[in-house]
């Protein structure tokens, strides 16, 4: 199994990277580009077979260490 | 796994000539295996063997009683700084990898040189770098402008510049080494082939010097650090060929990725291990990784070495012996341990959570034997491959363009029409402008030793007890270590070297020494990085040969032996070769804290004194040849550069230091690119108190009577001012004698780059004393003005320049940031 985790900055948090990418896209002539949010993507290989258990573990890890709830949101899927 | 057959094509792909291949076969006494071919190709690449440059390198002065480890002996030279302490330092290029992937290329360059230093047993305490890029701004008239679609190369130059700086910052900051000094030039010749020269300096006690030698038959050989992957395969060979679009593209997948965090751990663990005394020899895995480290350690010790590749930690599956031997995965070390003390290695590397593996043993065969899957895949006489690489005496021919350069005169160049506008243009020219956009991205203070931060002529560091590697628990440090002060500067004006390789080479060293003298330091030694184009081209090789002669003469003059360095050849792009660019990092020592001198003016009312001649009357171009002024204002990179009189230069440095030691000098700034006007402006605007808080100070300068060459005898100059002659006629070009008229060109007076000049400031009450002292010391000294007043005002025979220091500061401080926005 594999956990695929996406971590993004909370909307309220200043995201200078996102802002810079947004400006760059506009400069390059891409129209219709709104706010950009730059986050992180993690892929974790899992050895177990119990999907529910893995899901619980990953949720806990996301909350405890992989993201910082003060500034980041996360979502993940297990496949 | 089947290995490719050795064909002439394969040999050629390995950058070995048919003659070299014959020599290879003679060395082995048979045909090589594929792995052996790979090993030879990297060991005999220019990067590892210096086959094209070795005869030239031998001409450098390398001896001094202070030298503990000399050039070429080990990974870095070591110099005694007294009280049982020593410094190890070296500069190395990472030009080609940075052209391909600027961030990682530069980062791994920094990492590589840091490893070279702690391999010597020294604790790395500072980094310095020298960088070259294509232009990042569109000037009205660019030197050698092609006129065609300029925008895209500029965007690419900015990308390379930004990436390289970020990469250096990433690696150095994370490792925790301050990047304290550097230089950046922007010139068309570096477009597509940036130069990234990284320097590192470390400190150690004499008895802590470690050797890269596989000593002691039967001693186990350890591999420590991260696992080996397919990174940077054959990077050394890559660095030894012309950079083309194709080669750059091909290499993109193979660029090494640096891990400064890993390096920090490896460094701490190695220093801790060295303190135990369990280490018989230690060598980093730099270019050509396992190959170089095993061959060189065995060759230096006169032993053999046998390793088993199955024991090498591997990151990628199914790596061939060829790949493992040639991988350039970063942050790896080879350590030869005294037999019976293996447990200490394991204990320390486990403490730091670092991978280690015992991969082989030192033998008495003199051969480097590599086994993989139970078979011998390479068996090479180590000393022969390391020491008996091919050496070439390349053909040198004076380049044709020099005729045109020597014929160049100022008749076609109109004198400055608006000197203040030209001064502003020069201050904002990225090569001259403040490099704060660069060094504010570098942590230049970590380790609490940076006494003079970037932004003055030379960086000054203190060396205190905790700079030294720990001594073992058993041998207690018996006495406290006295603090030392060292100064560092790195220099290299490629335009000068291009226009006159010999004089240009001298100037590179002279400027570094002058920068040190301005900071209050006397030279200890230098490390040089020779960045040139293809040595097979006789004209390009002539540049190399002549400039090395200049460098060597100057190093002798300043008593600054070369302790090692690096050659980077084949720096050229389809558009042409780079300017020949030797960069020299010079390290000096300052005896007492009160001698530390910075470049900016300190107090209103202080007297401003020029040490050296106002104009070099013997130079037909009056210091304008190759000048920043001709390049920036007139779009000309032409004319014979200023002469460098080594004797005079040396006297100037001695006199300047004597004045500094006497305690009267409040500031000292060397006169280089942009001449007197830029130097004076920088002295007014370069002190930075804090973020957004410069300390600006005005200066009132009077050059009206100084525009008259030739310089009168010293007796007349040192005293009171002479009456101002009427120069109007001469200034406007109506003078009866042509050379006199040319001498009085305003641009030459303000922006000429005559060598051997320094601007100092002293308290007004000391001015007469200093002028008298200078006279006794045999150097020319002239009071040219006073610190303070409204802005920077320079009176000349032709015009009076008035500049608002806030505006000058803004142009100088923010130009690069604006270009990079």
């Amino acid at each position, binding site marked *: 199994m594999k956990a695929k985790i996406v971590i993004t*900055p909370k909307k309220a948090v200043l995201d200078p990277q996102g802002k810079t990418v947004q400006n760059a896209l506009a400069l390059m002539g891409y129209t219709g580009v709104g706010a950009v949010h730059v986050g992180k993507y993690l892929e974790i290989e899992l050895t177990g077979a119990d999907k529910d258990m893995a899901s619980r573990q990953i949720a806990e890890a996301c909350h405890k260490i992989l993201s910082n709830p003060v500034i980041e949101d996360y979502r993940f899927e297990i496949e | 796994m089947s290995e490719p057959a050795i064909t002439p094509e394969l040999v050629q792909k390995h950058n070995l000539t048919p003659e070299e291949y014959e020599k290879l076969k003679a060395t082995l006494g048979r045909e090589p295996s594929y792995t052996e071919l790979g090993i030879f190709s990297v060991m005999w690449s220019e990067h590892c063997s210096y086959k094209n440059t070795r005869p030239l390198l031998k001409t450098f002065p390398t001896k001094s009683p202070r030298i503990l480890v000399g050039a070429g002996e080990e990974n870095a030279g070591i110099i005694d700084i007294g009280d049982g302490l020593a410094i190890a330092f070296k500069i190395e290029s990472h030009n080609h990898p940075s052209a391909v992937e600027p961030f990682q290329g530069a980062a791994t360059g920094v990492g590589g040189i840091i490893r070279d230093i702690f391999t010597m047993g020294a604790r790395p305490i500072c980094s310095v770098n020298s960088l070259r890029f294509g232009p990042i701004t569109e000037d009205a008239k660019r030197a050698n402008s092609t006129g065609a679609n300029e925008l895209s190369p500029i965007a690419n130059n900015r990308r390379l510049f930004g990436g390289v700086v970020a990469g250096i*910052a990433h690696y150095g900051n994370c490792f925790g080494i301050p990047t304290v000094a550097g230089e950046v030039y922007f010139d068309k010749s570096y477009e597509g082939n940036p130069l990234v020269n990284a320097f590192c300096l470390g400190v150690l006690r004499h008895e802590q010097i470690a050797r890269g030698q596989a000593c002691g038959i039967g001693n186990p050989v350890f591999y420590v650090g991260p696992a080996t992957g397919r990174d940077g395969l054959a990077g050394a060979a890559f660095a030894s060929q012309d950079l083309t679009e194709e080669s750059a593209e091909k290499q993109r997948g193979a660029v090494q990725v640096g891990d*400064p*965090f*890993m390096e920090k*751990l490896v460094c701490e663990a190695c220093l801790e291990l060295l303190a135990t005394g369990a280490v018989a020899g230690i060598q980093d895995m730099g270019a050509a990784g396992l190959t170089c480290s095993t061959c060189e350690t065995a060759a230096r010790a006169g032993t053999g070495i046998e390793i088993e590749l199955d024991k090498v930690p591997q990151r990628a599956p199914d790596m061939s012996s060829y790949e493992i031997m040639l991988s350039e995965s970063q942050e790896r070390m080879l350590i030869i341990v005294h037999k019976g003390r293996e447990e200490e290695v394991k204990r320390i590397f486990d403490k730091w959570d670092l991978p280690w593996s015992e991969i082989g043993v030192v033998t008495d065969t003199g051969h480097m034997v590599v086994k993989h899957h139970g078979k011998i895949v390479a068996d090479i006489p180590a000393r022969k491959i390391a020491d008996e690489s091919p050496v070439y005496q390349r053909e040198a021919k004076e380049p044709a363009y020099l005729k045109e350069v020597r014929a160049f005169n100022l008749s076609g160049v109109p004198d400055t029409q608006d000197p203040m506008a030209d001064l502003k243009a020069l201050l904002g020219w990225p090569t001259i402008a403040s490099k704060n956009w660069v060094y504010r991205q570098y942590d230049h203070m970590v380790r609490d030793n940076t006494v003079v931060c970037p932004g003055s002529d030379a960086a000054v560091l203190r060396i205190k*007890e905790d700079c030294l590697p720990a001594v073992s628990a058993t041998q207690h440090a018996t006495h406290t270590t006295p603090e030392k002060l060292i100064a560092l500067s790195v220099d290299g004006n490629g335009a000068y070297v291009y226009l006159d390789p010999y004089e240009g080479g001298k100037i590179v060293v002279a400027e570094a020494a002058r920068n040190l003298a301005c900071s209050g330091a006397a030279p200890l030694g230098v490390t040089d990085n020779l960045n040139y184009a293809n040595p097979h081209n006789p004209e390009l090789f002539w540049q190399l040969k002549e400039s090395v002669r200049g460098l060597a003469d100057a190093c002798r003059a300043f008593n600054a032996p070369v302790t090692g360095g690096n050659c980077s050849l084949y720096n050229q792009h389809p558009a042409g070769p780079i300017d020949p660019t030797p960069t020299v990092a010079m390290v000096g020592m300052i005896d007492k804290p009160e001698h530390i001198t910075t470049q900016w003016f300190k107090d209103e009312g202080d007297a401003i004194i020029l040490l050296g001649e106002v104009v070099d009357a013997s130079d037909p171009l009056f210091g304008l040849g190759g000048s920043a002024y001709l390049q920036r204002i007139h779009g000309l990179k032409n004319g014979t550069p200023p002469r460098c009189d080594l004797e005079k230069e040396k006297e100037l440095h001695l006199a300047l230091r004597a004045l500094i030691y006497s305690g009267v000098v409040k500031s000292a700034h060397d006169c280089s690119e942009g001449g007197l006007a830029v130097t004076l402006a920088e002295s007014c605007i370069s002190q930075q108190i*804090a973020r957004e808080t410069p300390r600006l100070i005005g200066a009132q300068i009077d050059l009206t009577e100084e525009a008259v060459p030739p310089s009168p005898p010293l007796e007349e100059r040192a005293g009171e001012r002479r009456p101002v002659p009427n120069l109007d006629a001469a200034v406007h070009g109506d003078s009866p004698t042509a050379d006199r008229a040319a001498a009085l060109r305003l641009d030459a007076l303000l922006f000429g780059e005559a060598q051997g000049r320094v601007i100092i400031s002293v308290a007004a009450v000391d001015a007469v004393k200093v002028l008298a002292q200078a006279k006794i010391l045999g150097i020319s000294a002239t009071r040219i003005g006073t610190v303070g007043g409204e802005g920077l005002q320079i009176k000349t025979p032709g015009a009076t320049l008035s500049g608002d220091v806030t505006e000058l500061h803004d142009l100088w401080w923010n130009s690069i940031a604006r270009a990079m926005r």
Partner: protein
Amino acid sequence: MNFAVLQFPGSNCDQDVVHVLRNVLGHSARLLWHKDSSLGEADAVIVPGGFSYGDYLRTGAIARFSPVMDAVQRFAADGGLVLGICNGFQILCEAGLLPGALIRNRSLQFRCEHTFLKTATADSSFTSRIPPDKLLRVPIAHGEGCYFADEETLARLKANHQILWRYVTAQGEPTEAANPNGSLDNIAGICNEQRNVAGLMPHPERASELILGCADGRLVFESMIHALVGKPVALAT
């Protein structure tokens, strides 16, 4: 006084703090390895700067799970003085010992330069010896020093006077130009509600000796020492 200076893999200002406490201020300071689970004899703890664990997941994110951090949590809960500098500040925020978080500089670039700091309150063990209205000139060196907290937290910080230092101009004004990283409200350093744990991005240990250009940073350490002994300290120079 006995200071414990934590040492994580990747710490690189640990020696600097030890140097200042020991050689400049004349106190006892020792390095404490991240795998240690006890602080031993410590009167105060300093979490120094650097790139703990390479700052690879997030700054300070991995370090907070080191064994030594459990001991620091207990020490802080018992009222012990803990100061986090730069990466140490980031670690204390990640560990929940201080509110808020430190995110990437607004410029997206690492910044190393001197800043002026205005001390907002003398009512803490980290600021008590700083004369009112004295601006401290202290360098920063970080890529992720932009202080962030939600509105509620920020309001609480203000109400409780937990903001200890702000970035200001040479005239003492907390302007945008004086703010090197985009921190909310120009915040350079804060303390917890109990006022025994503090963190700041600037490096007082790099501004504690005149040979390095400035000794203002000493006031931070002297405040701690003052709080620990309850009386003024004779200083070694």
